[in-house]
């Protein structure tokens, strides 16, 4: 497979929710033999998706439609229950606040740790350290433990690392909203630059304006991929659906 390409092949993901799940060995032994009270639900069902190297892909859908889970599968955090996910190349992911940060370590140590997780040697990370600190704009806080950071600082540093490690694939899950306007603009500019350099970008966002800049957009609804195609088509279909739901609600209210 080409470096930077992502292939999602017939993927389904099931989560198990166990009610009254034994949290200690003692409980587990005491409850042995009793049937377990488990709820299963399929977060994703039969997703087929090929994202070519260097493309800018957007994912939309209502809350709980499985967007984040799909990104997590691409990032290798979860394993699909059925099917397979392949993503080749250096993959950098910003999935939620404080992505991959260890609260007790300082910002600088976390940058090294993140680098190590991407397979980048300490030497190389030292070389790009100044860029990262400058981009994040967190200044001297870089030598403080990240647990004292504000949520904005978390995201800034996380984003600074993710985009400065020359990723082949960049996964972003609606995190930029936390930063201020100025930082958001800087992020977008940087993302444009990465896109021009051929980085594959997968972006989850509720910002439909941002979606129109993508090459392709996918619409997830209740764990199913309803539509993949040109941004305008998919976004308008999605918005029409949202409006329809809205109208039903309004009718009910009357």
């Amino acid at each position, binding site marked *: 497979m080409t470096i930077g390409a992502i292939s999602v092949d017939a993927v389904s993901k099931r*989560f198990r929710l166990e009610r009254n*799940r*034994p*949290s*200690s*060995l*003692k*409980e*587990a032994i005491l409850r042995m033999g009793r049937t377990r009270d488990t709820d299963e639900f399929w977060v994703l069902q039969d997703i087929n998706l090929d994202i070519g190297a260097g493309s800018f892909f957007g994912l939309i859908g209502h809350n709980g439609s499985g967007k984040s889970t799909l990104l997590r599968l691409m*990032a*290798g*955090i*979860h*394993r699909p229950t059925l099917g397979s996910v392949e993503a080749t190349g250096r*993959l950098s*992911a910003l*999935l*939620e606040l*404080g*992505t*991959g*940060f*260890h609260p007790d*370590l300082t910002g600088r*140590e976390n940058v*090294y*740790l*993140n680098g*190590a*997780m*991407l*397979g*980048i*040697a*300490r030497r190389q990370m030292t070389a790009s350290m100044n860029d990262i600190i400058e981009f994040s704009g967190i200044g001297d806080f870089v030598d403080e433990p990240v647990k004292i950071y504000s949520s904005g600082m978390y995201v800034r540093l996380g984003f600074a690392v993710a985009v400065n490690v020359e990723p082949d694939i960049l996964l972003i899950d609606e995190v930029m909203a936390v930063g201020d306007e100025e930082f958001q603009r800087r992020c977008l500019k940087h993302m444009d630059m990465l896109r021009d350099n051929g980085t594959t970008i997968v972006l989850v966002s509720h910002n439909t304006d941002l979606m129109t800049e993508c090459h392709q957009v996918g619409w997830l609804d209740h764990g199913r991929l309803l539509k993949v195609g040109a941004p305008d088509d998919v976004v308008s279909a999605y918005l029409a659906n949202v409006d329809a739901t809205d109208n039903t609600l309004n009718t009910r209210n009357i």
Partner: protein
Amino acid sequence: MPSLSPSVRKSITLIYHFAERESKSRYKRSVLGWFWSFLNPLVTVGVYWFVFGAIYGAAPPETSNHNAESFGLYLFTGLIIWTLFTGMVDGSMEWLSSVSDLRKKIYFPTETALLGGAASNLVQSSLEVVVLLVIMAALSNIGWTLVFLPVAMALALGFGLGLGFIVSVLNARYRDVKYLVGIVLNVAFFAVPIVYTPELIKRDDLPVPEIARILVEWNPVSLFIEISRDAVYFLQVPLWNRFLAALAWSVATFSIGWVFFRRQSMSISEEP
């Protein structure tokens, strides 16, 4: 490292990182720093020597050259292996739980956290070995059999880490596993001839059931300790059947633990 695959290289970078972090955090906030790593085992040996050697008058086993016949040194040798072993089992649970939140947000091979911690523990044990060897050299109790000491350490590490792989995953699921392990290790300490000699339990005038004798003599940790004592204290070649049994224990436990961990560790990111 051009010949290694990227994923192996990534794992090595991570193992190094976790090892460094573990070593740094161990004595980070203390003025005396690494000095503690020498002081702690020395005090432990001092206390055990005082209680079992001085008060109970346990006699040090005879050696062929009589140069280093001290109950303290006999103890120290066994204690180094014991500390290495328990450090792996206890540490594994801690190492895994310290990265489990991280693992929910970013993918990395989880076993690197345990391997890194193990490497850091091995460095710690090696420092203790240096102290032991300096004393042995001063008493001119040195011989070629010393080559069996790193072997004994490797076997203890493999066995301890193999168990660590298993208990760390269980501990992530059931949070009381670490207390249970703590209790078992406390009992196990006395099932291993550290503060007493294996000859003691073989004496006919003691009311020790046969099963206990077999357990003390053939349990894996006893085997590792006996091999290390042969290497450093008695300066003799370990018995081959003991050696084979130790090797089998270590390889089998490590393999089972590794396979179990690799199978289960993906689900750690889905633990609530």
